[in-house]
């Protein structure tokens, strides 16, 4: 396992703890993007990252994706 930013991830990953501003953290958690949750990056591009979490599809802009750290197994990127 290794740590990286969400904006760099492809495939499955696990959201790690974050040091985000409190309101943004609450917004992310209330939408399902809580630390420890398993996610699957569906697609990423210059606009941001489209990911799957708990059977839902969430788009996260590139700016936020840069702030979120993830744990990825060594086969993933």
């Amino acid at each position, binding site marked *: 396992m290794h740590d990286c930013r969400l904006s760099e991830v492809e495939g499955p990953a696990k959201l790690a*703890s974050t040091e985000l501003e*409190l*309101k*943004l*953290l*609450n*917004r*992310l*958690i*209330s*939408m*399902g*993007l*809580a*630390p*420890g*949750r398993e996610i699957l990056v*569906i*697609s*990423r*591009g*210059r*606009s*941001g*990252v*489209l990911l*799957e*979490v*708990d*059977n*839902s*599809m*969430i*788009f*996260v*802009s590139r*700016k*936020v994706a840069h702030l979120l750290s993830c744990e990825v197994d060594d086969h993933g990127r």
Partner: protein
Amino acid sequence: MDAKIVLFGHPNVGKSVLFNQLTGLTAVVSNYPGTTVEVYEGEARVEGFRLRILDAPGAYSLLATNEAEDVARRLLLEGKPDVVVHVADATSLKRHLYLTLELMELGLPLILVLNQVDRAEKAGIEIDKRELERVLGIPVVLTAAVEGRGIGELLKTIVDVLRSRRAPSPPKLPPEVEGCLTKLEEHLSDRLPPELGRFARALASLTALGDEEFGHLTEDLPSELRERLEGLGRDLALARAELANAICERAVVSRGRALKPSVIDRLLVRPAAGLAIASSIMLAVVWSMLAIIHEIAHRLPSTLYYGFYEPIVRGGLDAALPDGLIKYILIGDSPGIYSSLGLLTTGVFFVFFMILPCLFILYLVLGILEDSGLLPRLAVPFDAPLRKVGACGEAMCPIVAGSGCSIVGVFATRILRTEKARFVASFIQWIGVPCMAEQVMIWLVLGSYGPIYVALLYAILLATTVATGLILNALLPGDEEPLIMELPPWRRPQLRNVLKKTMVRLREFLLKGTPLVLLGVLVVNLLYYTGLIGALAGLLEPVVSGLFNLPSHVVAALVIGVLRKDVAVGMLKAVAPGMTAPQMLTAVTVVTLYFPCVGSLVVTLKELGPKRTLLMIVIMTIITIAVGGLVGLLSRLSLG
């Protein structure tokens, strides 16, 4: 016995479908977040109870991040509900339980409804309802609202809860978090107004999470608690998320995926590909609609009007009524749609033979787009371009809704998170997005000179919107909120729902729009009958003729444009029949830009306040003079 029931939950979980099933009403239902931005109310009678059921706007959390979420929260804190029904998606319970845990802190009787259980079953998701009820301490009901499944059980559970009046205890959090929250709750209890005292625990949590509305109550917090506040908020949010995980691990077994991302979804995050796909789809839709409207929705009603209606009504009344004001008002003094200006000729033609058939087609297509899940997806590729003009991707839903009717569109800006984005998104609708009824008229009136002029008009409106947006973005203060957005699953639109929605919208037009259309025709009729049109035209001639290069009688259409823009565009042929194509282009541009219709103005005043509305009117006036003058100059040059 009366009881107030509030349906609460994330956007797009099927609250409105459930509301319709419970009440038999027809709240508009769509497959995108933010369809409901105001509160719908209906009634159900069961076992001697009269249930007043309220459908709250979607909210992810009690910590409101936009106006729609704030409206939803106020419904709980100020609306004195007897029972709160949390509607959650059975396929993604982990995400929804965070809100359940928040709602449990309110101390109001609570029911958890797991909707779309049919999708969950298909995806191999098993929910242990009993275990969930045991762990949470609240009743749980499984529903598939679209099929009407579980509705009877929900009504019975509501009655049971009303009889027992049992409210849940707050969820058990780690002792350290619990201890700090209790201290904060005690501090707030002494300072809250009596009607909010019962929510002290929930408000303590919200304050810890940085809620601004109750922040002032923490000004005299003991220093050790004040220092702990931000950390407490973080710990609280994380503890709730962990608790939601733990509960799901005990009560949910998932053996499959309910989500099937499409190729379009994968390409959306690539700006060029995403924009190309979104624009191509929109262009294809507009082009098809144009063809359908021209071939079917206009030609057939026109044949019916000229072949049957006009000879009977006009011919009959012309013979039956003596010459005078009444006859002039009803059928005018000359034949022909545009020159007659009578209520029963021009008025009836506009409403029933021109606008209504076209609106039917347009609303049908809009309904299909809404229900398929395409609309919210437009937010992703359009986020970057819209940010350049001061809005954001989420503004696409209000803007597209505004292409139906700007009253709905301006209301829908409640889903946006900053005042700046709301202002810009509302303003874009005022100047750059003609409503459907006006577009119908534009296609029919300006389109009669050739489709190139309609294309030119849209190019002018787009360029004006982009230029104004760039300036507004540079001048207006305000923060930017990053786009984090849930995309709904793709769904095959249900013809029944699309038709129902189309009928609801057409009924709205008939009830609210028709009187204004007829009033508009009547006003123009009287302007001509009394000769006032001459005086008005003389007064505004320097601007209308001098600056815009238009016949001075166009002023009659501008007067009517305040009431209805569609009528104003339709009237252009009547009040100034000899206009050239470039002049008609100038006239339609000016009518579209110079002022919002009265309905849109009232809603904007309510939503954005008088100061911002006045600012919008001032900017509109400047834009009209500049753009109208420029297009007028070009039309003068083209005429040689």
